[in-house]
């Protein structure tokens, strides 16, 4: 960002380059791949939450039409290995063996127990009926508190506690001792099912020596390393491709049983294989999200100034630890102090095994949980001492002149301006007018009550400084790589280690390159998602792509420019220091002489006349490892009408003012914010994975697992304040998860605010009409 160009690309609301092919579907999705001799895999899945497998007979299935092979877990026991967990959060963490197909015992409904490989997917599905398996049922373990109780059925040998992780700063006992106000609340983060538009799919093939896996994954690079480690196929003989991928929200940040098995089966049979999940299969077996019981306590002075916060968390791991399962609650551990100042903070989290689908990353991963608890609890504190929820926040938040600020949560926030974002939000919302209407409805005892919800959130994203990840025992680094190549005709190819699955990196990276190298936006192509063409990368999750990967692109451009400067100086017969770079050309200061970067690219390609000892190429790579996380923040305000006769909650208006620093493409940001808010509202009002008392998932279809569509959501009023991050040269912060993190507490705070005349201080999520109605019945009777 050193050059001023006539028309800066950064900041332009460019339409996304990739959308034409993504929207029309004229692109490569994993399930589109057809290879000669391809076989199809179908999985037989456990109908029991917890049982011993006493007999497996696949012989009848093997004789079904079109069937090429049938495998049970036992058949592959020697080679299938154990699915990886890359985040052993404590030294004494229990990480149970996790065979891709169950051997001996099943531990959740949907766990793969056997599979059929057949010549088409219909025959594969038909033959599943012919596999005979006998189960000897064991008790299901569904409730975390019961799982930890004395004498509980162990999900694994060694009991149901996977780990207990602790963290704290300051003297929390002192903060709570004699505190005039103490608030203690328990909140439940219900279990959620990530619902990407494209289901998971994998295609594996081999030429007998090397292997290629196409997968609808967010993490081709991580997957390659992990598949090599799990299967023993050497990394250099394994290529992983994430072609265009239709969404993930964390659910495709995984190394799945199906990916490992597809690779092993192609190795065994020597033929290409494909597996594509159905939506119901996905609801059962895509890793789930959230599922925590949060006990949060605040200690405050009589006028509501925070002294300390204590958090005690139970996190449901499900039946096994998957790629980063135990780390998810830890990503929230540092965020329970929110935007607030306090003297002391204490956090404890226990990971618990149950006989349910394992949990793992889901949009926001740890931070939505933390933000929810602190933003709900701050409303309780406001209620307790009788001040407006905004006032309690003003009394406690970090003031803009106090940045950089070292929080009790152990982080240093580099920048922020909570006052500015809140003022802007209030102006857009019409706060006072809505409060007046609220009190009028209360006075009239109107059957429709109005509630106003506030969320002044911040979050940490842009994973991450590798050193910090290391100190948290995370199994990898947090850097990102980019290579920028100048083609002979002056066009530019960017190879990025990020792995977009809907985010629009091709557009945003093009804008960064266009400004840095002075080339037209249209002249930039972005390659990604293939370990053969983009060998170095850490992929896309945790709102990291721009703040880490985008910076790598920028730095690589700077190197290319410096290379080009050498050539230009040679051609212009001047010293490199005499050149300034503007408008895509190196110009000799004070004279009219210039060489465009395209001319330099061609001259370098020809290599007829280069500086002595200069290698004939301009290309450069850069790997960026940030020094710090980025900390987006903002103020979200939500007005909700609650129909007290039916219990229905209808969002009347929603204002989001986010501060994500500088913006590369406002249209992409708008999309992320809208989708994020929708997903957070979905947790507040609609979504919940429900298991019955036997451990059967009841929400296997979209008729039962409700996802709101545009028709169910209000128009969002969005705006931004701009406080550039100081932790990276673009001054950008991540925006992929902010909306989700912010919106859930804003919505629930609004519902509780609407119902407070009934003496209601909490409604469990999702706040369904029935739950709200029942709360009102209980509150008035």
């Amino acid at each position, binding site marked *: 960002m050193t050059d001023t160009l006539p028309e800066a690309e950064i900041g332009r609301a460019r339409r996304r380059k990739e959308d034409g092919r993504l929207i029309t579907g004229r692109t490569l999705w994993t399930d589109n791949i057809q290879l000669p001799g391809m076989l199809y895999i179908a999985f037989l899945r456990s109908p029991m939450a917890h049982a011993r497998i006493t007999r497996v007979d696949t012989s009848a299935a093997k004789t079904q039409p079109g069937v090429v092979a049938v495998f049970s877990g036992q058949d592959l026991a020697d080679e299938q290995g154990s699915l990886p967990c890359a985040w052993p959060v404590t030294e004494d963490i229990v990480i149970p063996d996790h065979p891709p197909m169950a051997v001996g015992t099943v531990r959740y409904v949907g766990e793969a127990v056997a599979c059929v490989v057949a010549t088409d997917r219909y025959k594969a599905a038909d033959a599943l009926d012919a596999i005979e398996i006998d189960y000897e049922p064991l008790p299901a373990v569904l409730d975390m508190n019961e799982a930890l109780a004395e004498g509980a059925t162990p999900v694994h040998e060694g009991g149901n506690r996977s780990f207990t992780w602790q963290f704290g700063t300051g003297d929390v006992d002192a903060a709570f001792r004699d505190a005039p106000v103490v608030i203690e609340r328990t909140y439940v983060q219900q279990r959620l099912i990530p619902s990407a538009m494209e289901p998971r799919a994998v295609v594996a093939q081999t030429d007998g020596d090397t292997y290629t896996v196409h997968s609808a994954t967010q993490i081709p690079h991580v997957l390659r390393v992990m598949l090599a480690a799990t299967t023993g196929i050497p990394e250099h003989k394994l290529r992983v491709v994430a072609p265009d991928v239709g969404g993930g929200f964390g659910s495709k940040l995984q190394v799945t049983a199906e990916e490992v098995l597809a690779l092993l089966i192609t190795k065994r049979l020597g033929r290409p294989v494909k597996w594509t999940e159905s939506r*119901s*299969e996905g609801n059962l077996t895509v890793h789930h999200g959230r599922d925590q019981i949060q006990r949060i306590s605040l200690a405050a002075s009589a006028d509501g100034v925070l002294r300390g916060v204590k958090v005690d968390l139970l996190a449901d791991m499900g039946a096994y630890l998957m790629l980063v399962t135990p780390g998810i609650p830890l990503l929230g551990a540092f965020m329970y102090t929110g935007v607030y100042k306090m003297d002391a903070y204490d956090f404890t989290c226990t990971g618990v095994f149950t006989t349910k689908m394992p949990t793992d990353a889901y949009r926001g991963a740890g931070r939505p949980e933390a933000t929810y608890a602190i933003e709900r609890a701050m409303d309780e504190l406001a209620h307790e001492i009788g001040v407006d929820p905004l006032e309690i926040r003003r009394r406690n938040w970090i003031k803009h002149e106090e940045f950089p600020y070292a929080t009790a949560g152990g982080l240093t926030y580099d920048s922020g301006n909570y006052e500015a974002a809140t003022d802007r939000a209030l102006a857009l919302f019409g706060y006072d007018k809505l409060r007046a209407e609220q009190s009028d409805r209360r006075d009239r005892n109107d059957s429709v009550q109005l509630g106003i919800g506030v969320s002044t959130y911040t979050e940490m994203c842009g994973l991450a400084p590798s050193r910090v990840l290391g100190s948290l025992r995370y199994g990898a680094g947090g850097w990102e790589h980019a290579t920028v190549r100048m083609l002979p005709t002056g066009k530019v190819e960017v190879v990025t280690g990020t792995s977009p699955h809907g985010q629009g990196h091709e557009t945003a990276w093009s804008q960064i390159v266009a400004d840095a190298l002075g080339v037209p936006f249209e002249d930039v192509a972005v390659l990604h998602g293939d370990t053969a063409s983009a060998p170095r990368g850490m992929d896309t999750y945790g709102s990291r792509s721009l703040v880490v990967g985008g910076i790598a692109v920028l730095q690589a451009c700077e190197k290319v420019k410096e290379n080009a400067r050498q050539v230009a100086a040679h051609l212009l017969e001047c010293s490199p220091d005499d050149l300034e770079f503007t408008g895509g050309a190196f110009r000799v200061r004070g004279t009219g002489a210039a060489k465009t970067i395209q001319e330099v690219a061609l001259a370098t390609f020809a290599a007829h006349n280069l500086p002595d000892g200069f290698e004939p190429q301009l290309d450069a790579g850069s790997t960026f490892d940030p020094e710090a996380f980025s900390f987006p923040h903002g103020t979200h305000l939500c007005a909700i009408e609650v129909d007290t006769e*039916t219990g229905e909650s209808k969002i009347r208006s929603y204002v989001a003012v986010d501060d994500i620093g500088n913006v590369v493409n406002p249209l992409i940001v708008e999309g992320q914010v809208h989708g994020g808010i929708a997903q957070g509202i979905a947790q507040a009002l609609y979504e919940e994975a429900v298991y019955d008392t036997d451990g059967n998932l009841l929400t296997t279809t979209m008729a*039962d697992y409700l996802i709101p*569509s545009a*028709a169910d959501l209000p128009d969002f009023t969005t705006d931004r304040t701009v406080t550039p991050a100081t932790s990276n040269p673009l001054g950008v912060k991540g925006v992929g998860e902010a909306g989700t993190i912010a919106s859930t507490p804003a919505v629930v705070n609004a519902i509780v605010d609407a119902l407070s005349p009934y003496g209601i201080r909490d409604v469990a999520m999702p706040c369904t*009409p*029935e739950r709200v109605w029942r709360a009102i019945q209980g509150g008035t009777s």
Partner: protein
Amino acid sequence: MIPATFEYVRPTTVEEAAQILRNAAGDDVKLLAGGQSLLPLLRLRLAYPAALIDIGRIDELRGVRDEPDHVYIAAMTTHDEVVKSAVVQEQCPLVALATAQVADPAVRHRGTFGGSMAHADPAGDLPAVALALDMTFVVLSADGTREIPAAEFFVDYLETALEPGEILLGAKVPKLGPGWGFHYEKFHRTAQAWAIVGVAAAVKRDNGTISEGRIALTNMGTVPVRAFAAERRLPGVPITNGYGELREAVSVAAEGTDPPTDLHGRPDYRRHLAVVLTERAVRQAAV
């Protein structure tokens, strides 16, 4: 999931379809209309029919006809065609009002009027409308045609009075004449979701009071239910500033119902909703 193997035939006349049905007697064959209910059952492998008879190319099964005393809606008319039909909008607006609330545009372009009735899902919106308007269903088999009044058509959960071998041709919707108002009140959690409870109301207005009302409830039992107890109390209820009396009259709306329990509501909540929504439906229909 993906469906099990089935045969597929596509007749072009109803007689041909009836003959195929007769020949298949004993086998599990299914008529395929818009497929919006049947295909999910196949894909989830909750149904394994040996053959599907696609009646989507039979011209005489499509369209709306304006007859002297009734409107005839042919079975294969799609929800979208019903909603957009001027005849339906003018002569039996309740059908249009309810159909417009079925699912989402994609489903309404494929799902059919007859398919909804024949499928008889208690959460479907149209069976209650059929009941409230006293529709008559016209049915054909290889033996000829017969008519079945709506009150006898819905027999049990996903079960109608249609015999194996019978095809639903369409329904006669009686014209009620002047003075009637209509409303369909649907309560559901997302726009494209099925009703937790729905209320179809037809109300005759006479000099500022309700003179006659018909109320049918969606998803309050295994079949749609007429709220006769509430209907009996409606005559004489004033339309303007008489909501107290209306509330009183409809307080018995859930009488005799046996609502299901599922993730979206338990029976006591549904009974409560039936009363609240009936009041709203009647009020809307009356204004």
